C-alpha cells in the first residue's frame, strides 16, 4: 500500500513526454529512465557532459570515461553528444531542460526544496542540485512520503538548509502525487486504501484538492 522506489520511478516516468530533455538526480531518480512509456523517448542529460546516453553496460564492459553524474557507467546511443561542464550547465541554467527529477529530504508547500545538507555536522556536498532547481522548466521530487522514523517530509516550511526557493512543482511520494500551486500542496493521487485524513496526518502542511483525487496505482516491478 506504499510504492517502492522502483514504483515511484515508474510513476514519475509516466509524466515525461516524448522528446523531453530530462535530468535525473543521482540515486533513486536514476531508475526513472527504465520506465519510459511505449512510444515515448526522452533524452537524458547528465551534468558531466553527455546528452542522449543509454543504459548501463553489462558488468565488465564499463568504460570509465563514459559515466553519469552518479559516477556509474553508461553507454552511447545514436545521437549522443559530449560537451564540457560550462556548456552542460548552460543547458541547465539556461532553461533548456524540460524536467529534472530529484531526491529530497524535505519539500515545503511554498515549493522550497532541501536536499543537500542535513545540517552542520558531516561533510557538505551540493553537486549540481542548486543549478538544476533553477534551470529545468519543471522540477519534480521523488521521495518517501515520510522519514524512516515516520516524520513528514512534506512540510509547511523546510527545516534543513535549502537547495532552492520555490522551485518544486510536483512530488512523487511513496503514498501520493502532490502538486505545489500557489503556495499550497494540492493532492492529485493517493494510494488506494489510505484515507485523505490518514494521508494528511503524515503530511506536515494542509493538503488541498481542486478536483477528484485519483488512485495512485503502480504495477508490480
Amino acid at each position: 500500500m506504499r510504492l517502492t522506489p522502483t514504483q515511484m520511478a515508474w510513476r514519475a516516468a509516466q509524466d515525461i513526454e516524448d522528446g523531453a530533455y530530462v535530468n535525473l538526480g543521482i540515486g533513486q531518480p536514476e531508475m526513472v529512465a527504465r520506465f519510459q512509456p511505449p512510444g515515448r523517448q526522452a533524452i537524458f542529460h547528465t551534468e558531466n557532459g553527455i546528452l542522449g546516453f543509454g543504459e548501463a553496460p553489462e558488468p565488465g564492459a564499463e568504460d570509465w570515461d563514459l559515466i553519469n553524474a552518479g559516477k556509474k557507467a553508461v553507454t552511447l546511443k545514436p545521437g549522443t553528444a559530449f560537451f564540457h561542464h560550462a556548456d552542460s550547465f548552460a543547458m541547465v541554467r539556461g532553461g533548456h531542460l524540460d524536467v529534472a527529477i530529484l531526491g529530497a529530504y524535505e519539500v515545503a508547500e511554498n515549493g522550497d526544496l532541501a536536499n543537500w545538507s542535513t545540517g552542520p555536522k558531516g561533510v557538505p556536498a551540493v553537486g549540481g542540485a542548486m543549478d538544476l532547481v533553477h534551470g529545468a522548466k519543471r522540477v519534480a521530487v521523488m521521495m518517501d512520503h515520510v522519514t524512516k522514523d515516520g516524520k513528514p517530509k512534506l512540510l509547511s516550511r523546510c527545516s534543513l538548509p535549502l537547495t532552492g526557493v520555490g522551485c518544486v512543482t510536483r512530488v512523487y511520494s511513496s503514498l501520493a502525487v502532490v502538486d505545489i500551486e500557489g503556495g499550497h500542496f494540492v493532492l492529485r493521487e493517493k494510494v488506494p486504501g489510505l484515507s485523505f485524513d490518514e494521508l494528511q496526518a503524515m503530511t506536515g502542511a494542509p493538503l488541498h484538492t481542486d478536483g477528484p483525487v485519483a488512485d495512485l496505482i503502480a504495477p508490480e516491478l
Partner: protein
Amino acid sequence: MDKTLPDLATAVAGIEDGMSVMIGGFGGSGAPIELIHALIDRFLATGHPKNLTVINNNAGNGHVGLAALIEQGLVAKLICSFPRSSDPVVFTEAYKAGSVALELVPQGTLAERIRAGGAGIPAFYTPTSYGTLLAEGKPVEEFDGRFYVQERWLKADYALVKAHRGDTLGNLTYRMAARNFGPLMCMAAARAIVQVSELVQPGAIDPEAVITPGIFVQGVVEVPDPAQEEALNRANAHHPEVPA
C-alpha cells in the same frame, strides 16, 4: 522526436511581427541565405513578419541575405557590432533615413551577451567599452582595482542559423569559420531553426564532433549546396531578383 522541417517556408512560418531574430554569420560566412530569403518571400506574399529586431554581427552586404531583409522593409532595429561591408548601401540608407534603429555592441560583448542569454546568466561584467560612449548609462563596478561595465544577456524569439551537418535530433557541426555566432544563437533563442547542408540520421555524427547539441535546436531543414553571400555579391545578385 524528429526535428526535421519539410521545407524553408515551414521553417520560417512561426516568425511573427515584432519578434527578435538572431541571424548567424560573420559577413557572408555562416549567413543562412536560404532561410533569410524564405522569410523575405513570406513577407512579400503576406506582409508579415515586419518590425523585426535582428541580431547579427554585421548589417548585410549588397542586396541579398540580411541586406535584402533590410531593403525589403522587414527590419525595425538592428543589434550588431560592425554595420560596414564592401557594399553597405542598403543599411546605410535605411539608417540615415531613420527607418532602421541601430544598437551598436562591441563584438566580444555581443557574443558574450548572446551566450549569457543561452546560459541563464542575466548579467556579467566586462572590461570592454569601459570609459567609452558605448558604456554610457551602464552600471560600472570595480573588481580587483580595475573597472568593468555590466552587460545584460541577449535572447531572441528565433534564431536562423546555417550549419554544415545536422541530424534529426538537432545535433550540429559547422564548416570552418562559418561556425562563428551559430552555436551561441542556437542557445539563446526560444526557437533555433537551422539550415544544414546535409541532414543525417542520429549516430552519423561522431559524438565528440558535435558542436551544437540537439537540446539547443528546435528545427532542422536541409538545404544542399547553400549559397555563399560573397559569391552572390560578386555576381551582383538581388533578392528578389530584379526584373531584366
